């Protein structure tokens, strides 16, 4: 169970972007979070992915409060999450070949020996051909790069997936293909999903339930926020 209770978060303590937001995702459940541009839903997604420390409120992961935050949460808890961001260009290291991009989480967690087996398997799952894996991000299209970013999110076999506008930059066919990959993974592993987006039709089709921002953060104020950093 992933529980966010009365989360207040932002980039300036005097003007938090998210106020008093509460949200629960049950294991194996797919929750869609719907909200207008600039309402703070990407910030909340970063908090849910343990990448951004909330100013106030508690985050419970399977009943245990997440503690010992520095800027992010401790790695042992963070690796239970796979995250896909909106803009693949900003969330992929431009110097890495796609194969290294996908393998990066394995390297970072000292599981190098799994790379030869895991990366080709995942590349096949997300529909990347072997010749694409040797290229760098500027040599592939947005859709192909987002496929690699999704593979990177799945490489550690996360129990939770956070997809922050994963398909906003993509065409209809790639969107349907990536959603199918996420759903196949969830069907196989029982992972929970928080999908953030602004396309109600897509989220209704994709998720078990869709919640609107207004019900998640009733006290939230709408306003401009800084463009979300890619990673």
């Amino acid at each position, binding site marked *: 169970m992933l529980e966010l209770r009365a989360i207040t978060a932002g980039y300036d303590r005097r003007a938090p972007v998210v106020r008093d937001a509460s949200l629960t995702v049950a294991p194996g459940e797919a929750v869609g979070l719907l909200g*207008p541009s600039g309402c703070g839903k990407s910030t909340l997604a970063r908090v849910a992915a343990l990448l951004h420390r909330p100013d106030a409120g508690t985050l419970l992961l399977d009943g245990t409060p997440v503690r010992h935050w520095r800027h992010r949460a401790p790695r042992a808890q963070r690796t239970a999450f796979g995250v896909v961001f909106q803009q693949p260009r900003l969330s992929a290291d431009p110097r890495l070949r796609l194969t290294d991009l996908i393998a990066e989480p394995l390297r970072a967690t000292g599981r190098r020996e799994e790379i030869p087996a895991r990366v080709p398997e995942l590349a096949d799952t997300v529909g990347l051909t072997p010749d694409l894996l040797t290229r760098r991000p500027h040599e592939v299209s*947005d859709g*192909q790069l987002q496929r690699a970013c999704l593979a990177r999110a799945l490489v550690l076999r996360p129990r939770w997936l956070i997809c922050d*506008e994963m398909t*906003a930059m993509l065409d209809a*066919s790639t969107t*349907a293909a990536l959603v199918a990959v996420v759903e196949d993974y969830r069907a196989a592993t029982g992972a929970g999903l928080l999908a953030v987006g602004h*396309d109600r039709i897509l989220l209704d089709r994709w998720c078990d339930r869709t919640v609107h921002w207004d019900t998640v953060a009733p006290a939230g104020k709408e306003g*401009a926020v800084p463009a979300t950093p890619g990673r």
Partner: protein
Amino acid sequence: MLSVRGLSVRFLLPGGRRIAAVTDAHFDVAPGECLALIGESGCGKSVLVSALLGLLPANAQTAGSALLGDLDLLTADERTLARTVRGRRIGLVPQSPAAHLTPVRTIRSQLEETVAQLTGVRGRAALRTAAERAAERAAFPVDHLDRHPHELSGGLAQRAATALALVGGAPLLLADEPTTGLDRDLVDRTVDELRRHVDADGDRALLMITHDLAAAERVADRVAVMYAGRIVELADAEAFFGAPGPRHPYSRGLLDALPDRAFTPIPGMPPELGALPDGCAFAARCGRATDLCATLAPLTGPVACHHPIPAHDGKSPSTAAPEDIRA
């Protein structure tokens, strides 16, 4: 208004590789019309826009012609393009506003500069009012004008870029993915604003590049479908999104991928533009492909395919073709 004939763009890469980004594009945009160019990412849509504005990188080669009135945009020199075309005769709503806006200046200062450059407005107070009016036209909140681009959300940055594009009152508006990253309400407002710009004055036109099929359906009069650098179908928007439906198997697949339709992806991925097959580039992903597909199907009727999905409206395709093509 805009008449594109046989437009091709090739990129020459070191090592003699050639990328066929756009191949033999034919289309017209009539005054008062909105043409939506749709297709998967990486199929050459944005390159086509860059070619029309003379903004291609140095290693690009173009062929064919693109007539705006009597000016050929492909052969015009930089001086003509810079002084009379960009902003004045063609307005551009860019793909990524965050990269298009100047990061070190406020939106107000950029809008005022654009107003001063493109219109006759002079004097501080007049510029200030004109800039605020320009912001309002694109639904950009006036109290955010003194912010820098990094202080804006993606949606607001997009509206700022739209406001800049509308300032010059250009008769032809090119919108390159104007709605990427916006929520549905904002998409509707943005495209409605573009449409209003076209309708406000009968001799204006809009060429909108998008992969957002819902946005295309909302504003387009006609739809051009691009695949692997070629326009494979050119159809009336009403017929394309409505009952007869698209006729090219690729267009059909794109619509079927929508979450409110079948939500099934087209198998595989688009081919590499550097290594296109000789025949139909979609054959490898097409469920209806035959031996004939090893040869290229020209865009003779409304669709470039050897085995188009039959039109169900009872009209014979040959009578509908000249209307759709407007050659």
